[in-house]
């Protein structure tokens, strides 16, 4: 989840909490005030009524009492001694034409020597309306605040965290093999300035270390060549001598080992060259023609193993690869399909606009499929195999943003490798 979303979520929770508590509190306080006021009014009316009843003959003449208030005056024989009693009830309202809440004040009074029980009923409707209005205003303000806070937050985030996202963006695109120093605008935020300074320092150091390592690898690989050549050639010279058979075998082992080492070194330095992006240039390659040409060079091997080769070219895609890498990729894939095949097996090649599928019969690999692309993981005990072929394939596919899938089918005993590349590339 994004930082902004998380922050917004907290804001929202707190805001809702504060507003519900605040609204409830405001509601009860308001209600209390209004109620109090209302009751005061009723009592004031009571006093007024008593005053009017005592002083005037005709009650109709007065207009001091509120319209809508219902006054009920009942004459009783004896003093009921009712002190003021407040109750809430519902009554039929003439104007609204429905039952509405009313508050009644009932009291008894002695007026001009007679006893009366008087009830003043006052509609609570304006009261309720007021509370509802206030609540609506509260909710409205809450919503408005939430929305504006959200926008404000977003804006602050964008502005404040801009350097941070800049750093992330640059780090994402950073490649140690093609290092571009970080370019981050100085920010008002000390923390970000510190972060970019620390990162800058770290990256500079890493680039330096990487260069040193690369030079070391290059030099080592270069320096190994000559002694390796000496060992190999000395063994060859020894072979020409009149040696006993066992001596000859020993020499031959030296020779074989040096040959293997040379091939291993070749593979490793190739891998490091690809990793160092030393194969940048690319050319348009017609994959169909290219495959056909490569297959020609394997013809004899395919024949020797009596392998049935089926090629299906659904399309004739043009890819833009470095010539050497294309050679390595296709040769490795084809030679694997032959090397790990069985006598009288089969190879199926399907070329589409965006994909190349190579399927061949063969024994089950000795290692799990996800390890197959790692260095020095061999799927068989073939002595001639350096265990680098598929790592090289993997490296090349990574370079060209291709997808590579490998599968082994247990029942059919077949290996399938599929390459996918983006057509737009």
């Amino acid at each position, binding site marked *: 989840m994004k930082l902004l979303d998380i922050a917004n979520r907290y804001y929202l929770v707190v805001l809702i909490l504060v507003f519900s508590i605040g609204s409830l509190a405001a509601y009860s306080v308001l209600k209390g005030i209004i109620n109090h006021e209302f009751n005061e009014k009723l009592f004031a009316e009571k006093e007024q009524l008593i005053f009017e009843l005592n002083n005037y003959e005709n009650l109709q003449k007065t207009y001091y009492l509120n319209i809508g208030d219902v006054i009920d005056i009942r004459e009783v024989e004896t003093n009921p001694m009712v002190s003021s009693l407040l109750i809430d009830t519902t009554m039929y309202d003439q104007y609204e034409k429905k039952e509405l809440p009313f508050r009644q004040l009932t009291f008894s009074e002695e007026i001009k020597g007679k006893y009366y029980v008087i009830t003043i009923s006052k509609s609570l409707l304006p009261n309720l309306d007021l509370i509802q209005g206030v609540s609506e205003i509260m909710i409205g303000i809450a919503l408005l605040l939430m929305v504006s806070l959200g926008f404000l937050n977003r804006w602050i985030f964008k502005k404040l965290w801009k350097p941070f996202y800049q750093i992330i963006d640059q780090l994402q695109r950073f490649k140690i093999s093609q290092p571009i120093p970080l370019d981050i605008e100085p920010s008002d935020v000390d923390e970000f300035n510190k972060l970019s300074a620390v990162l800058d320092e770290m990256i500079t150091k890493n680039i330096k270390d990487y260069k040193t390592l690369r030079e070391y690898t290059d030099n080592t690989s270069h320096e190994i060549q000559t002694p390796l050549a000496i060992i190999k050639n000395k063994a060859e010279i020894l072979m020409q001598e009149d040696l006993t058979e066992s001596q000859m075998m020993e020499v031959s082992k030296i020779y074989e080992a040096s040959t293997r080492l040379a091939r291993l070194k070749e593979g490793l330095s190739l891998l490091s060259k690809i990793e160092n992006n030393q194969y940048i240039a690319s050319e348009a390659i017609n994959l169909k023609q290219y495959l056909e040409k490569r297959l020609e060079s394997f013809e004899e091997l395919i024949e020797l193993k009596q392998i049935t080769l089926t090629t299906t070219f659904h399309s004739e895609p043009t890819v833009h690869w470095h010539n*050497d890498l294309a050679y390595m990729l296709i040769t490795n894939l084809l030679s694997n399909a032959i090397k790990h095949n069985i006598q009288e097996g089969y190879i199926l090649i399907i070329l589409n606009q965006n994909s190349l599928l190579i399927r061949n019969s063969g024994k089950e690999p000795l290692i799990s499929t996800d390890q197959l692309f790692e260095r020095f993981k061999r799927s068989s005990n*073939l002595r001639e195999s350096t265990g680098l072929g598929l790592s090289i394939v993997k490296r090349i596919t990574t370079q060209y943003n291709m997808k590579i899938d490998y599968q082994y089918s247990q029942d059919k005993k077949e290996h399938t490798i599929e390459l996918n590349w983006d057509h737009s590339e």
Partner: protein
Amino acid sequence: MNILLVEDEKSLGESILNYLEKSGYHCEWVENFTQGSEKTWAYEYDCVVVDITLPDGNGLDLIEGLKKIKSKSGIIIISAKNAIEDRIRGLDIGADDYITKPFDLSELNARIKAIIRRRNFDAQNEIVFNEIRVSPYDRTVSVNDQSISLTRKEFDLLIFFISNQNRVVTKESIAEHLWGDNMDMADSYDFIYSHLKNLRKKIQEKGGNDYVETVYGIGYKFTKT
């Protein structure tokens, strides 16, 4: 046949010198750029074998010097770097071939032979090995004056053997000579065997001798007996 070897690594120089002299060349060996340049000015060699990295100069400059004096020598570059730029530049300025360390002496020998053959171009130029006559230009072979037809690989194999006659040549060097990079295969040795079997059969059918001797576990030896 005169060959000049310019190689600063003593042990390597020794081996190459040893192998080439036993192949019947007259071979001179110098260890640095200065001496190499002097030699090339003084004599015309059939082939010059130059290491690129020399203590006092670049082998490529030596080649440029050779080209300046319009030398007809064949040129092979030896390099520790399998760098494409070096190879392209070397071949651009007029080298005939490029070989990367570590290499097989038999391969170097075969390449020197091929270059010398090309340099002394002559349609009549044939390689005669007892009853076997090979014409490298039209790629034909005859045994006891009867022509035999060989596949490309069989032909290359025969030339490789004749170039390295009386030498033990390893299976690895044959495989690399015939298939280059593609030889990283388990069955390439079976494959050599199958080509060799056909080659032997075709030569023997015309009454030729079997000159190929198997050196157990190592390779073969083509012996002129």
